[in-house]
């Protein structure tokens, strides 16, 4: 019996870490490791606690930074919402999508159409509009997902690539409704009264339109991540990972592969739609040029850099995507480059970071840190048990 209780041998230090890089950033679903925790046992309470802490953190962050930073956080929020959905699809379920930019376009155009009302008329309430944007993308995502569930690897990439290239073309084709190449200007909704008084009591900062949009983005981000985190840590997330890892074995366990793949695609599309809605009101424009393949690829690089399958990773990857280029550009101008050269430096540095990450941390930020941590914990446990045997 002893051999099953005390794992030993040379490889023991890394035994507790997952072997594959894909799985490195996936924390096991709720308490599946049986580890101790000071957080509440109930998933709902635990996630609500984290949500409240993050909300307070976000208010502090947004109130202590400049309006320019506020607008960057608004940008971050829509990237992170879409990346969160994508990391669930690609990281947890193993389906690649190059078409998430197009799904964001569905959300953005829905929002633009809903806000495009005659002067004097009131548009629908903003939460409802964003919900409809998410819903529209969910429907499109479900349809695409049904097709995608039968495809794998490069074929799936090809099919979703067609979506990324084709769907914005629809906006040009139906230019009377969607405004063609120029796109639709979005009349961003004004900040309501209660928001102005809220900001006034919290910090006394002026409650500008930018600030309102940053808050809208961050609130959407927190709500999305709350729901996604619930799914990731539940049976749903575990089943997705099982389908990703070994489809034959999953099927024999009674899992209908198609259903679960479509479900993942649909959930992911819903997040992309909401991200598109937020993008539309933050950028104040829904145009085909905003939803090119580059957007879809940026989302993919963000989740890979952050650590596939991890929501925190998706957030960090998106942050890199949003904050690194301006940072590098500023650095370039400081070093005496002219503005064009400085702007060209940013994509180069991003590329270098991407290559370096793939070389030295293929599991992404979160995956690498998690593997290190598990290894360290295992080593400490081994040292402790070695200590006790030598004493005894």
């Amino acid at each position, binding site marked *: 019996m002893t051999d099953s209780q005390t794992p030993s041998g040379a490889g023991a230090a890394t035994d507790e870490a997952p072997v*594959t890089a*894909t799985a490195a950033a996936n924390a096991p679903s709720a308490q599946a490791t049986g580890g101790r925790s000071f957080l509440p046992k109930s998933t709902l309470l635990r996630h609500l606690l984290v949500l409240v802490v993050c909300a307070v953190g976000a208010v502090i962050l947004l109130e202590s930074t400049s309006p320019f930073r506020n607008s960057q956080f608004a940008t971050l929020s829509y990237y992170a919402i879409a990346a969160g959905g994508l990391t669930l699809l690609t990281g947890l379920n193993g389906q690649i999508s190059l078409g998430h930019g197009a799904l964001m376009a569905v959300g953005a155009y829905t929002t633009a159409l809903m806000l495009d009302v005659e002067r004097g008329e009131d548009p629908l309430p903003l939460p409802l509009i964003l919900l409809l944007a998410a819903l529209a993308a969910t429907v499109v995502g479900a349809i695409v997902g049904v097709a995608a569930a039968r495809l794998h690897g490069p074929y799936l990439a090809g099919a979703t690539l067609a979506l990324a290239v084709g769907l914005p073309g629809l906006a040009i084709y139906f230019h009377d409704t969607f405004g063609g190449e120029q796109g639709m200007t979005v009349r961003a909704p004004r900040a309501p009264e209660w928001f102005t008084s809220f900001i006034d009591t919290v910090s006394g900062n002026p409650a500008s339109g930018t600030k309102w949009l940053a808050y809208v983005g961050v609130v959407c981000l927190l709500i999305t991540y709350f*729901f996604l985190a619930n799914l990731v840590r*539940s049976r*749903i997330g575990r089943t997705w990972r099982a389908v990703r890892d070994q489809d034959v074995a999953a099927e024999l*366990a009674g*899992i209908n592969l198609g259903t679960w793949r479509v479900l993942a695609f649909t959930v992911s599309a819903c997040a992309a739609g909401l991200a598109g809605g937020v993008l539309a009101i933050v950028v104040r424009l829904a145009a085909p040029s905003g939803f090119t393949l580059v957007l879809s690829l940026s989302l993919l690089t963000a989740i890979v850099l952050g650590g596939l399958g991890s929501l925190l990773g998706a957030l960090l990857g998106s942050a890199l995507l949003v904050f690194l280029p301006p940072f590098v550009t500023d650095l370039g101008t400081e070093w005496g480059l002219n503005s064009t050269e400085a702007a060209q430096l940013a994509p180069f540095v991003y590329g270098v970071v991407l290559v370096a990450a793939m070389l030295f941390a293929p599991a992404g930020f979160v995956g690498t840190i998690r593997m290190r941590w598990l290894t360290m914990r295992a080593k400490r446990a081994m040292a402790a048990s070695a200590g006790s045997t030598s004493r005894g």
Partner: protein
Amino acid sequence: MGPLAQPPPHPGSQPHEHRTPTSRLELSGISVAFGGVTALSDVSLTVEPGQVHGLIGPNGAGKTTLFNVACGLVRPSAGTITWRGEQLRRLQPSKLTRLGIARTLQGVGLFPGLTVLENVMVGAHRHAKAGFFSALVALPASDADERRLRERAGAALAELGAEGYAGRYPGSLPYPVQKRVALARALVAEPDLLLLDEPASGLSEDEMHELGDLIRSVCTRMSVLLVEHHMDLVMRVCDRITVLDSGKQIAAGTPAEVQADPAVTEAYLGDDVDVEADAAALTGHPTRTDGGRTHG
């Protein structure tokens, strides 16, 4: 001594009631052709409730094909599959567990990105009650469901003496332990019929012995169809054996009957070897308990 030999530990906490198996699997007149090549022709076998049925034969005899027919991965070109008195047609692999059939894969087929406990929890999929929306909003029902699945999985791991590995990832475990986890994953579904595809491959003699004890202990709850080429294991645990050679059924019966059948000896040994010595190896095992390996 490995942990497999232990009896199921805490009978009180085991989620499964003590059921007497009543379901029968009948394959009759099964033929399978892969693009003109006949893999199986007119094979029939019946797995009686609560019995361990062995399926043996030389390499390429069609054991795995028949096995795949039984679980719907391969559709036969002729013949019928009857399970619990009803004919099975167009069987989707994912519907198997709902019908009370579980199978293990040749090799291991564990999910590398899931911990051992999670792997087994996936096996309990058909016992999950909470749906998508209760998971989405993390309702207490979802937590309660997870707890139930975790307990089931824990009990299954304990039955196989693998509970110490619950938090580990399968890739870091020795092969025999992985096999135990895979078996736990099949058992946690609480099937009425367990299909085991070469469960002993890669196991040492001792571990194989423990596996035999385990199979005998689970057949009080379910029927077992076993594909295996380790003759000593098959002879020791099976109630009935079907022997295939080149897609045809050449013998069927109790282990003693099969061993006595000259067609079996011939199929296994051919003509150009020392028939007597190898036949002794084939028949010498049922009473052995020292676990020594004699055939080679």
